[in-house]
């Protein structure tokens, strides 16, 4: 996993509440057995005017000009500004894979669905919760200002706007540590092999039916 420390990225607004993971990456693309290559199909049904299927040449498909990601001023965006309950629905990790593959490293919203939120951290994406009022302000500013970049700093847990306003955000200490260092959870957990084995042995003795 790529570490996340600091990002000075162009922001793009996605002004809808309850964006679900079916919308982020529709089901037909879940048939892939790989982790990479989902970016061109992120938000497929909103982004293109035709119906997408795996294997299509996406560069030849008609784009929906009204969709923010297609607008010239938002090309190269790496910060996604979203509304409440972002990433609800299916647990598909293909959703953060698609966002990462597209180029997003940070997502700012008033709230996220639990599983999606968790999946982001496993993939080097920083999901940031700000108050609905602050997210509103960011929406207004990003829409009013072309080339609006946000400086996201994980170490100091702050977002700085082009006007110099600073927003602090919370992040779980363990997740922050993993993200700052690009650490793989499995390696960390396997440092505790003996504890897991001891726990398992106990469990097997007290509830043997779990091991039938």
């Amino acid at each position, binding site marked *: 996993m790529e570490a996340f420390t600091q990002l000075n990225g162009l922001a793009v607004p996605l002004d809808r509440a309850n964006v679900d993971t079916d919308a982020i990456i529709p089901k037909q693309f879940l048939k892939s*057995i790989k982790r990479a290559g989902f970016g061109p199909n992120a938000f497929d049904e909103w982004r293109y005017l035709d119906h997408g299927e795996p294997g299509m040449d996406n560069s030849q498909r008609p784009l929906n000009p009204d969709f923010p990601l297609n607008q010239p001023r938002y090309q190269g965006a790496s910060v996604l500004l979203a509304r409440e309950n972002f990433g609800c629905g299916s647990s598909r990790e293909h959703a953060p894979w698609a966002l990462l593959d597209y180029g997003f490293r940070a997502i700012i919203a008033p709230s996220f669905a639990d599983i999606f939120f968790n999946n982001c951290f496993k993939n080097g994406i920083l999901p940031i919760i700000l108050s609905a009022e602050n997210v509103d302000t960011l929406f207004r500013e990003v829409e009013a200002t072309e080339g609006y970049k946000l400086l996201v700093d994980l170490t100091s847990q702050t977002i700085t706007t082009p006007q110099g306003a600073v927003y602090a955000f919370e992040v779980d200490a363990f997740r922050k540590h993993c993200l700052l260092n690009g650490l793989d*959870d499995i390696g960390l957990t396997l440092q505790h092999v003996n504890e897991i084995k001891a726990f398992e042995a106990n469990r097997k003795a007290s509830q043997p039916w779990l091991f039938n």
Partner: protein
Amino acid sequence: MSAKTLYDKLFDSHVVREENGTALIYIDRHLVHEVTSPQAFEGLKIAGRKLWRISSVLAVPDHNVPTTDRSQGIADPISRLQVETLDQNCSDFGVTEFKMGDDRQGIVHVMGPEQGATLPGMTVVCGDSHTSTHGAFGALAHGIGTSEVEHVMATQCLVQKKSKAMQVRVEGKLGLGVTAKDIALAIIGRIGTAGGTGYAIEFAGSAIRGLSMEGRMTLCNMAIEAGARAGMVAVDDTTIDYVKGRPYAPRADQWEAAIAYWRTLHSDEGAHFDAVVELKAEEIEPQVTWGTSPEMVTAVNGRVPDPAQENDPTKRGGIERALQYMGLTANTPIDQINIDKVFIGSCTNSRIEDLRAAAAVAKGKHVAPNVKLAMVVPGSGLVKAQAEQEGLDKIFKEAGFEWREPGCSMCLAMNADRLEPGERCASTSNRNFEGRQGPGGRTHLVSPEMAAAAAVTGHFVDVRQLLN
């Protein structure tokens, strides 16, 4: 010791270690399907890692499998590759898999409980958000992402922070024609799709205790639609009677010890919940969703809402967008909405009790002429066999329904079963998101009874009118 919630008991009894509020919890059962596992198996192979405990894993293909004739295998080459990849990975790693053609094959959340592979007191995970289903057994069960699938495969553990606890209490007696699905939708209508975010929900109260295991599974299944990763119900005789004698259930010599422990799996008197929601069973009516989120729901005798009545601009925009997508006009009575297709199935509503209830409504009637397709997709091969033994397949076929092979089918349309753009479907599944059942498709979530009633009348109708 202070009073504990069921969630406290389940979580605390699985903590291997804890540091600064982040716990490593032990996983008893890992269910696997073809869509969210290939990248996890690949990760293990690349790192040269093995499965920590092979016997904890059970695999089944469900999302991509055809529900029609299977003698020629899967026609779509990409779907076929995904199922073949699961077969290969299970073979390489020694995992038990119920393949297509095996009677035990079915939707992973139907198969687990049916096999007794889901037991009270377990932690159950699967790379699928509807894993919350298994909480019906007094288990801690939730969906995980593929990175976590790989993590559980390699370590038998999951890195977790404890959630807050919510109790949803439903007291009273459900009316005729009102089901667990209606309870679930009514709860989501009340608290919203983010109402349970950050919580584990325990469903309690006399109406919940009165539900069968099938009903409890339907309810816990949709906890995730309320935003909660996990839903659960305390263990009682209904739970224990369901588990007894199933293939993976405790052996006879383990049984008494097992049930003695299982009977402790309930919230203690006076246990603290961070939030409590109460509903009266008598006030719950058959529900129908009208929009593109499960919280966009009303009673069957209600109307499509008018966005002009909504003050919150984000919500108003959401309603307007939903009505446009759904092709609905504000204030239309729900029972005047005609349908094109009917889907009875999914991990929410494809168990034997669901099929019995739908068949009872369909019996002696016929699918309405304006309905192009009404399909029944049993949750597993064993459910299908049971239904056929009871003659339900004949009732459905005589009424003009198609009787299919088991799988996820048109709940998410990864296989060939899907809506065409603009088609309207009465569906017993769990999600009415844009495009969920096929691009441009319009989904209305209902109970199996309500779906069958819509099939035979051609529009939504209060099923109680047909039952009286």
